[in-house]
């Protein structure tokens, strides 16, 4: 029996976000380091909210990663390899409900 709140259960385990860490590049490390700082460090959280460009500029990110952050593009951040247990708290802090989070991750689904 599987119960769900709108999530989809037909995703292969290889796409859960736990595995892609094994092959990450340095910028993926930096992107996750930024998310982790915002999640757990009040000073970093305030800087991300009040001077986002300067704060993000301190991390060695690709243009795609910077754009995904600027747009708060949850689907893109997921595909860029932000671990699900970093991404969900990161979006909770940004005020994203569970419903909106799932909708963002499953466009059209």
């Amino acid at each position, binding site marked *: *029996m*599987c*119960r*769900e*709140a*709108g*999530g*989809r*259960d037909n*995703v292969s*385990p290889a*796409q*859960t*976000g*736990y*595995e892609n*860490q*094994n092959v*990450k590049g340095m910028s993926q*490390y930096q992107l*996750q*380091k930024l998310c*982790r700082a915002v*999640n*757990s460090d*009040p000073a970093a959280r305030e800087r991300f909210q009040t001077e986002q460009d300067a704060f993000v500029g301190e991390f060695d990110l690709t243009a795609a990663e910077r754009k995904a952050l600027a747009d708060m593009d949850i689907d893109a951040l*997921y595909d860029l390899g932000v*671990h*699900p*247990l*970093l*991404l*969900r*708290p990161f979006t*909770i*802090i940004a005020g994203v409900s*569970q419903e909106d*989070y*799932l909708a963002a*991750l*499953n466009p059209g689904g």
Partner: protein
Amino acid sequence: MPVVFAAGVSHAPGSTAWTELAPSDQKDAIYDGYARVADDLAASGAESVVIFSSEHWTNFFFDHMPAFCVGRADHYDGPVEPWLRVERTRVPGDAALAAELLSALYAEGVDPSYSDEMELDHGTMVPIHFLLGGRMKPVVPIIFNTLSEPMPSPDSCFRFGEAVGAALAKSARKVALIATGGLSHAPGERRHGVIDGDFDAEFLDNLANRRHDALRALTHERMTQAGGGTHECRAWIALAGAVPDWSGETVVYEAVVPWATGFGLMEFRPAA
């Protein structure tokens, strides 16, 4: 002294942060269960509480990811999450017990990391809130990597738990043991919200019947299939190793869809 109390419990952040979303019958069952288990813990005479829990990127990151880390501080602050609706507080730590435990483990060739400064997140603060709230005891948090591959196998966790149980038995301290995490859930994944009731029922049944071989043989792939958060069940497997002669009794199991978690609460007692 052998462990005097043992329980396993989920630490679903929804149980404090999104209480209003859950059906009232499920909430009543869960909060009543917590109250009964908290009373049992208080009545056990435990002086300190060892908590097996899971890392959530609070103390560790890809710069350093220990398989097991024993907290050796005399206090811990938490929770780190401003949205958890648990008041940030200072939890006393039992640094002496942690040091004693570490010495005993290293003497046996079991070598976890240790830390004199850790913060607590929902993984420890939710069970502390419900099981120790108002009756606080000093804690020793032991944090497992259940986030990032590779992570310790269920068999490795069982053996680690065996070593912790043996080490605690040598201490003069009366210790309560809490394992926390799981059950099936997929937090933050595209599958967020999926609950694998079949996995949860079989897992609890194996704990109830001390089927340790089945617990040790659980595969990483099966846990991943039940949701990435299901890896946290490793803490419960370690608890089974720490009290191998005790059987689990399910106090409550509820698949709480708004909390996106198969919520389990199980108390362990010496097998009759």
